[in-house]
């Protein structure tokens, strides 16, 4: 894993000290709320419905067990014993006090963590494939480049006041697990004409009230040019992006307004001047960062593990969990484990301090002390020996972390919604809980198969509802919560925006509506088709019919 250098340490320490002073001046009256609000937001501290909320950056979702224990400590000592893992691979605390916020940041700084650029019109925390470095289908480890981007974008003087927030995601594998096409910039590692690796660059993706799929503006970018090219994109955006209207300020709007050809031409022109300057990435710098992500000391062991195979047969509950939560690893004899934070009827993405500690211990015991947070609001233990899977599963089970539903219907992605969020129109979590309970039966869940279901409490789309196979958006109609449904969204390499099925459903009808959609799919699917396959074949009409015919 990447370890801070002196520079990182100094930056973070100075920033906490500065923020401590700002909080003290706010409490003593030297700063008004209007003066203080932008300062607290720059340090990840929001004011929500019931309390402040602190968002802590987890660069590309990577955590050491030591960091996870610190997150647990903060949850217990400064919050109410839990935290919420988000679709941006970060963690949010829902109950921190203003007068303790600097203490929390001091604690986090001891494990190289902070809340810088988790808010505001800056380049936000860079996200990446949670299976980075271990996926069997990977071209190269995306974390190397995510880390290079993190260093370049952190406190970048020119890009601290962009027209709007800016999000970058990187995938190293052709199968996109980082939803790069929903980001302002999406970067995909790719092989070039001579077999060398470089990047394809996508620009202008976004969610919110205007969902857009990012467009490719460069088919192949050599590695040395990564930062100069990003700088060129950011410069064009910084200069031309709209600052007069918050709803038109994201780069997606600029790209749509001037057209992708014109936008690309402007970037290429800017890049010509930057390309051979200080931002060119020398090979030895890439090698230096790469060393931080060197593979752990894998053992040379056989891929076939008889004791694992026999456990699969003798313990069906274990077999079910392996079926959904265990993924093939690039190294024989190892496996990637997704730890579901979606227990039946639970709150998607929430973990208690005890669970965080338990999983940190399991990471130490079985996975080289490392963990990842996924955009699906789950955790990943990336390097488990197959022969340890059973013991790991038992360890997870002792803490309610063994839900066998990764990638299935009840692996619901949900934002905090009106239970916590001051921007919300409707609640998300209770809908997720009711759907989770309705589809609690595991045989049925497995029969339904791979599907994504995303629920946002307002059009900001923090839970990615536009790109859920089934998307649910909470809306407010005269003080009553309603839920609009979209179908056919997806967030992988074939990213699509879902289609609105029709009029929104009331709180009492939404779960039935989801069941109708699922049953319609089951009736229409042919052998081997997942929900999205069927949807793409048959379209919206049959779903519309079954949903609204009876009304």
């Amino acid at each position, binding site marked *: 894993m990447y370890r801070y250098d002196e520079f990182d340490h100094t930056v973070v320490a100075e920033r906490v000290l500065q923020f401590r002073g700002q909080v003290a001046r*706010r*409490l003593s009256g030297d700063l008004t*709320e209007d003066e203080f609000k932008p300062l607290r937001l720059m340090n990840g501290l929001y*004011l929500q419905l*019931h309390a402040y909320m602190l968002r802590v950056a987890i660069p590309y979702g990577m955590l050491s067990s030591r960091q996870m224990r610190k997150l647990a400590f903060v949850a217990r000592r400064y919050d109410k014993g839990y935290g919420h893992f988000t679709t941006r691979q970060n963690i949010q605390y829902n109950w921190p006090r203003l007068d303790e916020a600097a203490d929390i940041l001091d604690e986090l700084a001891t494990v190289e963590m902070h809340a810088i650029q988790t808010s505001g019109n800056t380049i936000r925390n860079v996200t990446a494939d949670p299976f980075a470095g271990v996926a069997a289908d990977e071209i190269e480890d995306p974390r190397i480049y995510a880390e290079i981007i993190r260093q370049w974008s952190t406190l970048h003087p020119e890009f601290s006041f962009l027209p709007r927030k800016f999000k970058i995601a990187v995938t190293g594998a052709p199968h996109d697990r980082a939803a790069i096409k929903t980001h302002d910039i999406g970067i995909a590692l790719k092989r070039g004409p001579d077999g060398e690796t470089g990047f394809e660059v996508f620009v202008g993706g976004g969610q919110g009230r205007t969902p857009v799929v990012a467009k490719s503006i460069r088919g192949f970018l050599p590695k040395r040019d990564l930062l100069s090219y990003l700088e060129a994109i950011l410069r064009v955006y910084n200069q031309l992006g709209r600052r007069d209207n918050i709803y038109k300020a994201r780069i997606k709007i600029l790209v749509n307004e001037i057209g992708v050809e014109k936008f690309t031409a402007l970037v290429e022109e800017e890049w010509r001047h930057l390309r051979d300057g200080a931002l060119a990435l020398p090979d030895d710098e890439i090698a230096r960062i790469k060393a931080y992500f060197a593979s752990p000391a894998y053992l040379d062991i056989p891929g076939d593990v008889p004791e694992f195979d026999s456990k699969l047969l003798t313990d069906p509950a274990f077999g079910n969990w392996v079926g959904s939560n265990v993924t093939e690893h690039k190294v024989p004899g190892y496996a990637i484990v997704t730890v579901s934070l979606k227990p039946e009827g639970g709150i998607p993405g929430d973990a208690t301090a005890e669970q965080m500690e338990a999983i940190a211990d399991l990471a130490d015991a079985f996975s080289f002390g490392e963990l990842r947070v996924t955009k699906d609001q789950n955790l990943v233990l990336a390097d488990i020996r197959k022969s340890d899977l059973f013991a790991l599963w038992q360890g997870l089970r002792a803490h309610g972390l063994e839900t066998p539903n990764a990638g299935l219907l009840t692996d619901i992605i949900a934002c905090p919604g009106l*239970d916590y969020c001051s921007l919300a129109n409707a*609640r998300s*979590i*209770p809908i997720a809980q009711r759907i989770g309970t309705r589809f609690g039966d595991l045989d049925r869940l497995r029969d339904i198969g791979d599907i994504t279901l995303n629920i946002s409490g307002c059009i900001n789309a923090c839970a990615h509802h536009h790109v859920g196979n089934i998307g649910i958006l909470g809306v407010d109609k005269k003080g009553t919560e309603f839920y609009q449904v979209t179908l056919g969204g997806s967030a992988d390499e074939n990213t699509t925006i879902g289609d609105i099925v029709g009029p929104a459903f009331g709180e009492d009808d939404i779960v039935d509506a989801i069941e109708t959609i699922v049953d319609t799919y089951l009736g229409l699917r042919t052998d081997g088709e997942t929900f999205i396959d069927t949807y793409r074949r048959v379209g919206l009409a049959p779903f519309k019919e079954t949903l609204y015919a009876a009304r």
Partner: protein
Amino acid sequence: MTSHAVTANRLTDGQVVYLTPARTWSEKLHASQLAEAGDDANALLQSAQASVEARLVVEPYLIPVDTDATDGQTPRAVGRRETIRAAGPSVRLDLGHQAAQE
């Protein structure tokens, strides 16, 4: 005429509070001073400004309230948002103001 109360978030911890007849702040909606919509309500909101300057609360605003059907005076939040603010998350009954109440 609808009754109104003044609500805000406390500066130090962000907790939801309501302006009382004594011009102090309470975590309980039912302790709040009520005023009829219009001049009375605006005057009540104006009186909260002193607490903003004293750094007790941030962003005070008026909310319409219903009065309880049984006693005709205990105020109740109107709408989902203010109901959740007054009580706490509907999905965690152990948290927020609702946890402290019986």
